[in-house]
C-alpha cells in the first residue's frame, strides 16, 4: 500500500499512460513506458534538436524527421528529455532502434513512435490532450452537480463510489470508521456491518493506493474521507473527494445529529426528578435495537450536558463548535446535550480538559456543564445523560463548586458525596418530599427514619456501616427501614435511589425540620453538621 507523496496535479492534467492507451493508441506505439508515470502539461514539436533545450518539464516532445535522422539524435533527444524531465519522447517509427529502446529504459524516459508525419502527429496529440483535459474537467463538474443533489450521506457517498469505479468509500473520525459504503450497497440497500476500529473492512487493497481528503479541520480530530484506488486512478479520485468534502461535512453532521437524537431514550427529567419542568424537546420513543443499528459511535463516549440561559445560547454554540466542531449539540429544554467520543489513549481527561478550556469564558455566568463517566454502546446512553445532567445541574447552582476553581464544568465522577447535599435547593427538596412521601413526613419518627435512610444511602446500602455510623444496632436499623417501607418510601427500587437520596438529604438540611414538626417552606438557612466524609 503506497501513499502518493508527490505534489498532486492541478485540474486538467493528463497522465501519459492513460492518455496513450485511451486516446492515442492508434497514433503512437509505445516502446517504453517509464514506471513513474508522467503527466503531460505541454506538447512541443522539435524540428531542430537544438530546440529541445528550451522545453519545460512534463512536456511531451515530438521529434520531426529532421530532428531524428541520425541515431545519435534520438539518443541525444532521450538524454535531453531525461534532463528536462519531459513527459516522454515521440519519434518517427523508422528511427526506433533497439539501442534507443535500451537507452530509454536506462534513463527511465517514455519512448513512443509514430508512423505518421511528425507535424500531423503533434497536432493530433495536442488536440487529444486538450480534449482529455476538458473531458476530465467536464466530468468532474458533472459529478459535482449530481453530488450536490444527493439526499443524505449514504446517497452522496454512493455517488462517490460510483465515480471511482465502485470502490468502498469510508468516513473516519479519530481513526475509527464511522461510515463505509460502496455503490453496490447503496443500490441494493445493504448496510455494512463489518465496521471495527482501524480494520479495513474486508476489501482487498493489494496494489492500491490510498487517497484521502479532510472533511473538516479543527482542534480535535477531523473527519477524513478515504478510499483505496489503483495508482492511475489516484489523481482523479483525489479531485473527486475534494469536490465532495464540503457536502460530506454537512451531511455527516446531519447524520450524526439524527443518529444521536434517534438513539436517545425518551427521557424526561421528570422521570429523573419528578418535575415536569425538564422535558426533552422532541421526544422520540426509543427503540434500543434500532438505535444500535444507527449508533454513530464506535468506542467509548461521554455525555456532556450544558445548562444555560436562552440569551447565552449563541455563545454556547460558538464555544461548542470551536471545541467540538463535529459533535452536534442536541437541544433540550434549558440546555443542550451531546455525546462526545473518547479516544482510548487520552481518555475522558482530554474531553474534560477541552470542555473546561472552552467554557472558562462562562465562569461568571449562570451556566453549568456536566460530563458523565465514560461508557460504550447505546445501552449506556440513559445513564450517561442522567449523570451529565446532574453534574451540570450541580455545576450551575452551587457556589461551592465554583469556588473549587473548576469553573462551571463538573464531571460526574468528581461529585463529592457531600455535594449531594447541595444538589437540590432545600425548598425544592421539602416540596418534593411532601409531594412524594407524605406519609413519611407525617410520621412521628420521620426525622429518625429519614436520617437512617440517608445514612444507609450514604454508606451505599451497607447496613452494618450505616448502623455503626448512627450508633445503633443493626436490628434497630432494619426495624426503621421496615417502617420506612410501610410509609411508602421505595427503598427496594434502584431507579429511585438517587432521587430519594437527594430529596431526603435536602430535606435533612432544611431548617427547622424536626421530627414531628411540619416544616415550613421557609426553612431556616442554617446547615446541618452532617458533612460528607
Amino acid at each position, binding site marked *: 500500500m503506497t501513499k502518493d507523496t508527490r505534489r498532486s496535479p492541478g485540474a486538467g492534467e493528463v497522465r501519459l499512460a492513460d492518455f496513450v492507451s485511451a486516446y492515442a493508441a492508434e497514433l503512437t506505439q509505445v516502446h517504453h513506458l517509464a514506471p513513474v508515470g508522467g503527466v503531460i502539461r505541454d506538447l512541443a514539436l522539435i524540428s531542430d534538436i537544438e530546440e529541445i533545450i528550451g522545453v519545460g518539464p512534463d512536456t511531451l516532445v515530438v521529434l520531426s524527421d529532421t530532428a531524428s535522422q541520425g541515431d545519435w539524435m534520438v*539518443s*541525444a533527444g532521450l538524454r535531453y528529455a531525461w534532463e528536462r524531465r519531459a513527459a516522454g519522447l515521440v519519434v518517427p517509427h523508422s528511427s526506433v532502434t533497439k539501442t534507443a529502446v535500451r537507452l530509454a529504459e*536506462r534513463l527511465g524516459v517514455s519512448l513512443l513512435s509514430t508512423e505518421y508525419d511528425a507535424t500531423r502527429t503533434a497536432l493530433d496529440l495536442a488536440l487529444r490532450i486538450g480534449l482529455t483535459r476538458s473531458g476530465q474537467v467536464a466530468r468532474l463538474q458533472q459529478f459535482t452537480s449530481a453530488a450536490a443533489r444527493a439526499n443524505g450521506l449514504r446517497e452522496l457517498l454512493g455517488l462517490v463510489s460510483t465515480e471511482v469505479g465502485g470502490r468502498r468509500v469510508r468516513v473516519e473520525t479519530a481513526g475509527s470508521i464511522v461510515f463505509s459504503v460502496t455503490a453496490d450497497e447503496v443500490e441494493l440497500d445493504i448496510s455494512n456491518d463489518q465496521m471495527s476500529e482501524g480494520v479495513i473492512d474486508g476489501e482487498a487493497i493489494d496494489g492500491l493506493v490510498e487517497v484521502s481528503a479532510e472533511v473538516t479541520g479543527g482542534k480535535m480530530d477531523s473527519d477524513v474521507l478515504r478510499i483505496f484506488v489503483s495508482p492511475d486512478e489516484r489523481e482523479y479520485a483525489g479531485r473527486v473527494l475534494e469536490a465532495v468534502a464540503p457536502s460530506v461535512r454537512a451531511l455527516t453532521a446531519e447524520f450524526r445529529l439524527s443518529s444521536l437524537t434517534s438513539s436517545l431514550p425518551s427521557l424526561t427529567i421528570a422521570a429523573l426528578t419528578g418535575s415536569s419542568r425538564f422535558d426533552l424537546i422532541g421526544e422520540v420513543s426509543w427503540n434500543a435495537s434500532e438505535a444500535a443499528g444507527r449508533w454513530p459511535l464506535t468506542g467509548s463516549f461521554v455525555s456532556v450536558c450544558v445548562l444555560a440561559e436562552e440569551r447565552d445560547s449563541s455563545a454556547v454554540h460558538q464555544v461548542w463548535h470551536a471545541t467540538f466542531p463535529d459533535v452536534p449539540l442536541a437541544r433540550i429544554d434549558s440546555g443542550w446535550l451531546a455525546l462526545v467520543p473518547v479516544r482510548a489513549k487520552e481518555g475522558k481527561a482530554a474531553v474534560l480538559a477541552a470542555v473546561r478550556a472552552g467554557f472558562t469564558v462562562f465562569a461568571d455566568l449562570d451556566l453549568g456543564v456536566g460530563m458523565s463517566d465514560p461508557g460504550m454502546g447505546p445501552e449506556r446512553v440513559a445513564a450517561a445523560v442522567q449523570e451529565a445532567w446532574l453534574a451540570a445541574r450541580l455545576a450551575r447552582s452551587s457556589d461551592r463548586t465554583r469556588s473549587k476553581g473548576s469553573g462551571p464544568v463538573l464531571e460526574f465522577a468528581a461529585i463529592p458525596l457531600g455535594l449531594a447535599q447541595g444538589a437540590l435547593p432545600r425548598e425544592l427538596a421539602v416540596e418534593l418530599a411532601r409531594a412524594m412521601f407524605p406519609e413519611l413526613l407525617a410520621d412521628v419518627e420521620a426525622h429518625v427514619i429519614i436520617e437512617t435512610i440517608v445514612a444507609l444511602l450514604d454508606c451505599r446500602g451497607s447496613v452494618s456501616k450505616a448502623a455503626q455510623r448512627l450508633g445503633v444496632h443493626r436490628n434497630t436499623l432494619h426495624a426503621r427501614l421496615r417502617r420506612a417501607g410501610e410509609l411508602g418510601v421505595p427503598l427496594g427500587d434502584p431507579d429511585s435511589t438517587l432521587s430519594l437520596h437527594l430529596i431526603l438529604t435536602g430535606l435533612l438540611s432544611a431548617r427547622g425540620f424536626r421530627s414531628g414538626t411540619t416544616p415550613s417552606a421557609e426553612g431556616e438557612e442554617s446547615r446541618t453538621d452532617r458533612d460528607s466524609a
Partner: protein
Amino acid sequence: MYLDSEDVRNLSAGALFNACAAEPEWTEDGMRRVLAHMDMTGLRPELKQVTDLDPDALVVCVGFVNNGLSLSELRPVGDEFIAAIELIAEAHGREVAGLIPLAAGSANAVVPFLAGMQCGIPVIDADPMGRIFPLVSQTVFALNSLPIGPIAAVSALGESALLRVDEPARGERLLRALAEEFGGWAATASYPMTADALGSAGILGSLSNLIAIGRVLESSRGTDHKHSELRRSCGVRQIVRARVSEDSWVARPWAPSRVGIPASVVLEEEAGGQIIQLEVQSEILMMLSDGAVRAVSPDIITLLRPADCSVASLDDLWTGNVLDICVLRAASAWYTPAGRKLGRRPSLAMMEETR
C-alpha cells in the same frame, strides 16, 4: 633529422592512431612503400623544422584526394607525386624546397616521406590540419585566408591538371570532381607557400608528434603503461573501454539530396554499463554516453585494442569485441568559432556547437 625504419613504423602507427580510418591498409601500404624504397635505394627520409629553411623557400602540401575507388583498389603506380611536384615547381618557376602532408593522419601523413625520397626534397615538420578532415579546404591555411592554389593533380592513369584557383572551398570542389573523373583519387600538390608563411600559419611539430605517439604504441610495455603515457605526453583526454553490442552497425544509404547520415555503432561501457554510441562517417565523429555527448569533432576519437594497445580500425567494430576508445583534443585553432565553422560536418552541426 633522418628517419630510420623504426621511426617510419612509429610514424605509421601514430598516423593510424590520429585518424581512426576505415582503411588502415592504405597507411600500412604507404609505410611499406617507404620502407621498401629505403631498402631499394639505401636512402632515408629527411624531416626538418620549418625554421631550417630559408623564409622564402617554397613549401607545398602533398596528399591524396579521394572520390571513388579506394587507394587499395586503384593502386598508385609510383610516379604520381613526382609529376605533381614537377607541375607545381613549373608553375612557380622555382624548385620546391620542402613538403608537408595534407593531413596529420592516415595514409596522407606518410605520403610526403616517399615523395620526398623520390624527389630529393625534405619533409617539414608541420601540417595544415593537425588531424584528418574530409575536405581539402578544412585547413588552418584556409582559416588564415591563404590561397589553396595553384594545385597540381595527377591521376593513376598518368593524366594531370594544373588548377589555378585561390579559394580553398572552390579548390576542394574542383579537386573532388577531378578525383572522381580520375577514377577514384588524385595525387595532389597544393597550398604552395613560403616557409615563413608556413611558420606562422601551420600546425608545427605534428609529424614528430605522430612519431612520438607511435613510439609509445609500439613499445613493449604493457597496455596500462601505454595508456598513462598517452594521457601524460600525447594529449589523450579520455580512454573508455567498451564492448561492441549486438545491435551495432546501423547504416543508412545515401541519397543525393540528403546529407549523408552517419552510421551508428553501439557499445556498452565495461565499467558502468553505459550505452556508448559512436557516430561514424569515414571516421568517428562523435561519442555519446547514455545519450550525452562525451566527445565530438573536432575532438579526435580513435580506437585501440586493449590486449596490446595496437591501433584498431573501424573494421574492429564487430559484435563482442572490446575496444579502448580514446579521445584527444585537436589543434586549438579548430575550437575557435571560425575553426568550428570550417571544421563542421553538416550532420552534426548542432552538437558541435554546444560543446
